[in-house]
């Protein structure tokens, strides 16, 4: 499972960076969301994977019985997903507006701020 996740994360990162380096604005946004997904999965995987052991406290005791899945990385990922959702929504609105005002879909043409 760990190996599979590692491959998926690596693939997402490389695809994300590849798409960011393309000239199309839409591909850039897709690349950015790939990057954030890859980071989310990385947080999830780096926290350690434990299958089938939900961190539930049995009746009568004060702590779950180890080994159990660490719930914290999942809470972090949840927060990060919400943030990346909001940011992606903003980025899409920005793309739309940029296209409307500049008429450009090619990043290389967005050069007016440089000189």
């Amino acid at each position, binding site marked *: 499972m760990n190996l599979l996740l590692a491959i998926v994360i690596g693939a997402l990162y490389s695809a994300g960076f590849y798409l960011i380096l393309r000239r199309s604005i839409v591909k850039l946004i897709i690349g950015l969301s790939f990057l954030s997904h890859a*980071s989310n999965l*990385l947080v999830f*995987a780096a926290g350690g994977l434990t299958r089938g052991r939900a961190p539930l406290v049995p009746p009568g005791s004060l702590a779950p019985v180890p080994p159990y899945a660490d719930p914290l990385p999942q809470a972090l990922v949840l*927060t990060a997903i919400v943030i990346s959702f909001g*940011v992606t929504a903003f980025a899409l609105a*920005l793309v739309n507006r940029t296209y409307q005002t500049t008429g450009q879909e090619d990043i290389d043409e*967005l050069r*007016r*701020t440089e000189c």
Partner: protein
Amino acid sequence: MLSLLPVLPIVIPLLSGAISLLFWRSLWIQRWIGVGGTGLLLLSTLRLLSEVERTGILSVQIGGWAAPVGITIVADLFSAIMAVLAGIIGFCVAVYSWYGVDERRQSYGYFVFLHVLLMGVCGSFLTGDIFNMYVWFEVMLMASFVLVALGGTPMQMEGAFKYVTLNLVSSALFLAGIGILYGVVGTLNMADLSVKLAQTADPGLVTTLSMFFLIAFGIKAAMFPLFFWLPSSYHTPPPAVSAVFAGLLTKVGVYALIRVFTLIFVQDVVYTHNLILIMSGLTMLCGVLGAAAQFEFRRVLSFHIVSQIGYMTMGLGLNSRLSLTASVFYITHHIIVKTNLFLVSGVIQKMRGTGDLKKLGGLYKTHPSLSVLFLIPAMSLAGLPPLSGFFAKLGLVIAGLRLEQYCIVATALFVSLLTLFSMTKLWAEAFWKPRPDVAEGEDEPRSDDEPMCLTMILPILVLALITLTIGIGAETFFNLADRAAGQLMDPTEYIEAVMRTRS
């Protein structure tokens, strides 16, 4: 009430922002809340600083969950100083924005997002939890994204695009770093991280990990080689927005760098801090050389932000108490001065309708008082005595000489000279040379300058006076910075303040 003092700088902007939202249709009320809310923020941060200065590091465990489980809000001297600076800048810019930002932008929630931005900035300064810092960064970024794009001119959209993309990449790296850090250490509380990493079995892994944070914060702070987004986006929004960004946002990156590289990642100082030192030198050099090639007021200033960032991180790279003192002092000086310069550029832009140096000129003849108000921060930035910049640079140079890092000291002095050249270029082009005649094929320049209004000049005057005060009363400020650096170099007090269980 007193025990909640460290939370106030976060709560006040949140409430001001929320209340402003209720008065969406009334610009008048939003402006008053803008000035009043940021004024209250400034007062609360000043109170916080005096309290921290008197009684030592303050901490609040949010929700009553003791550290390291819960989120801790910590205010040590460095955080408190940064929060005060955020308060000063917030207040000055809110007053300036009254007429400095056009009504259309104001009616689309300019003040609301200004409050949210300040909340994110103060939150990043005061949090004691690394994931919480990520969340505050996002709060701040989201507000800054809106502010940079608000108005929607083609220039702004292009600038916003570069700004958004680079910051999102940096956030993704920051999050990845946090994830791996949690996997390795099993905690997110910065004080707890410091304790646990001090006895780590695998320092090599931690050093590798620290590179995630160096790159993520390096992008936010606009360090070499990650600074390209800054000069191509900071000059596009209205000057008031540029001023907040120039003053506060990159400094949040510098703050985060100093925090994690003094508290958490001190395993392999020779490698990490030397790397920071090399990056600092190149940052200074690239920034100032970039500025020399520019001919637009705010673009020159934007490149100077980059070059000044190098000085701040140089103190971190040297890693001694004196150098960190100089860094803290430098950040204080820089935030005031840089915001001031951007505000002056805004006044000029409003008066003449352009920031192009080739079209400007003759301002000294028509507005001698404004020229003096430009000259004070400009010379302070270049480091002429008795202004604040001189003492900031002097501290860094002495620290560098004591550690026998002659190379970086030489770079710092050389860059300082080029900064002076660049500031005199601005002075000569915008103020001194006669106003150019109408060039062919261009619009006729306005025959009369727009009159300056008091609410735009007043913040500039206040900030200029603060620069002078820091310069003349340098010893007081240096001692304060020295104590802040003492807390940074020896984190035991910080750790005790966080771990002390208090509901």
